């Protein structure tokens, strides 16, 4: 089971280390992690996606909650949450047709095309991890040179 955890922490050095250490020491998995300061500079929000059965995810949340540096730990319901990840693909192209095809795919997924060279093209895509995965499958035949992904950022919708 996949889970999105939203963790509000004090914005102090060493907290990211403690959180990732907890995952390692307790044998939990980090699928993706993203960290950024909140509107209040005293706090940072970490968004961690992880997987495991219900019992395991419950235990991860409890262990995170127990940490003194965490202010709030929430499991987000993906149906009530806006969650997105930024990804950048560098894709091999061999001719103008390839370039057009990649452009079309990028447009279809709401991506932006950058840095068009004669043998490569870069696509920036902000989407859900599933959509990014689907896009990756579609451009694989062209040859993927590199991918960089940020991990998920997520916030629950108001009134839910």
């Amino acid at each position, binding site marked *: 089971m996949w889970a999105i955890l939203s963790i509000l*922490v*004090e914005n102090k050095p*060493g907290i990211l*280390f*403690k959180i990732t*250490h*907890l995952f390692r*020491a307790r044998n939990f998995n980090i699928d993706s992690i993203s960290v950024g300061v909140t509107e209040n500079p005293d706090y940072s929000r970490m968004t961690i996606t992880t997987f495991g059965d219900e*019992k395991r995810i*419950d*235990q991860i949340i*409890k*262990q995170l*909650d*127990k*940490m*003194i*540096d*965490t*202010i709030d730990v929430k499991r987000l319901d993906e149906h009530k949450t806006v969650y997105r990840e930024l990804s950048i693909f560098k894709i091999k192209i061999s001719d103008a047709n390839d370039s057009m095809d990649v452009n079309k795919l990028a447009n279809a997924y709401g991506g932006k095309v950058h840095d068009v060279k004669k043998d490569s093209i870069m696509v920036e895509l902000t989407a859900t991890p599933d959509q990014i995965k689907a896009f990756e499958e579609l451009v694989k035949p062209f040859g993927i040179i590199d991918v960089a992904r940020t991990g998920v950022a997520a916030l629950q919708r108001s009134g839910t």
Partner: protein
Amino acid sequence: MNKMETMTGAKALMKAMEKEGVKQVFGLPGGANLPMYDEFARCDIRHILARHEQSAAHMADGFGRVSRKPGVCFATSGPGATNVLTGIATAQADSSPMVVVTGQVAVNMIGRDAFQESDIIGMANPVVKYSFQPRTAGEIPGVVRKGFYIAETGRPGPVLIDIPKDVQINKAEMTFPEEFKIQGYHPWTDPDIVAVEKALDMLLNSEKPIILAGGGTIISSAFAELQAVAEALMLPVVTTFKGKGAFPETHPLSLGPIGMHGHAEANKMMAEADCVLAIGTRFSDRSIGTFEAFEKRLKIIHMDVDPAEIGKNQTAQIAVIGDVKVSLRIMIKLLLQRSIKKTEESIWIKHVKETKAYWKENLKIHPGEMSSAKILRKLREILPKESIITTEVGQHQMWASLFYDVIQPGTFFSSTGLGTMGWGFPASIGAKVARPDVPVVDIAGDGSFAMTENSLATAVLEDIPVIVFILNNSILGMVAQWQRTFYDRRMIGVDQQHCPDYVKLAESYGAQGIRAQSMDELDKAIKTALSSDVATVIDIPIDPEEDVLPFVAPGTSLSEMILPS
């Protein structure tokens, strides 16, 4: 807020500790903590010199467990700090309140691989409850206040304060805060009364209910509450090993510890019960055997102060989160309201008592005059009931669990979680500092005692007269037992070859050394030690072939005990 005063970081540290009620520090000086050490010349806190930082930490741990106030230990940077790690991990595994203050290289040297620099904050991270590294002197009073608060509240644990040398030396305007806020820390939860009510109903509606008291019962000193609930509901009480002595082991409802080397009657009854009230326990593998076999069999009511323990190892039908003393008091109130006071023995409790009587009568003990059972029963017979016991780790520890009955709750302490050999002796020194008015005995094995035996210097020079009671089989006995049982008697790396001579060793430190080779000699030795005002080592040669039995082999369930043949 008090009025501001200008002073060095080191002075502020000592002042802040005095405000916390600290009377002594166990430790060792070194380059990076000298400014703090210099302050001992100008304050009322006693310094007790250990001979190894690990022992200093165990002394603080022993003090903390007995006094339920954080014990404090000091170490220098680098190797001083890394030596403390085992002591910190031991305290964390057993939820013992402790404050460790390490020196660190100066702030501008951190990260440059300076002499005696170690990233102790990083290394200790998984074994501390929390850690601080103040970067300016002015932070110190607040850090100490928060550090002690975190160490002793909720589920207690070790707190590390790592102070760079320049931060100790620098002066700042200090304020000593009374009020403070730790936003992400909620040590206590009020127990849910409805959950306690449901728990009571579940116990009343079960045919074979039992109480399993863990170490949390002792930490919370919920002795009277536990006894009141057990007596009102007429429930048999087993404990974990860490919970040994949470309930008087001479009480008719007591069955003693369960687990790998639990009492036969305790394991039998735990295996037959259909509902367990588990109080302050984390259901360790050593206590309950295989996790799956345990939770499938019976209904679990789990009371614990730490929400993360609920569902970690066992799935509870009913969870009551909060200080177990408070939770039990709510249950007592409900019992009074509903006028529940069982007077008639159920079929179950009759069966429990018969089983207990059977095993008291029929558990075979090792033959020969100097068996562990006879030796430890002799110790029990002579020691006043308020005496405090610590143990080392190994066979002697499990024999103590089997054959030394705790009469007064909260007088038995052991390294149960981490299983740290060498813990018992320095911990007994800390315990004796906390309770100088009662005899303190470290039940030891030769292998384990050897790991921290140089604490004899501390016991003698600091005038802390503890008794080390060595069941000496001149072998790493528990390892030897596993080699006999699981490795076809290939005895590798266990023979101590009667080295050293512990009587001479004790004497060389200025302690009293007595060898006891018969029950008469043992009787005399214990009495001599009790009336002596110097630390005493009693060396008792025993048979290296004696096993600890019963034995629940790892990966099996409590019903599959290996019994003495």
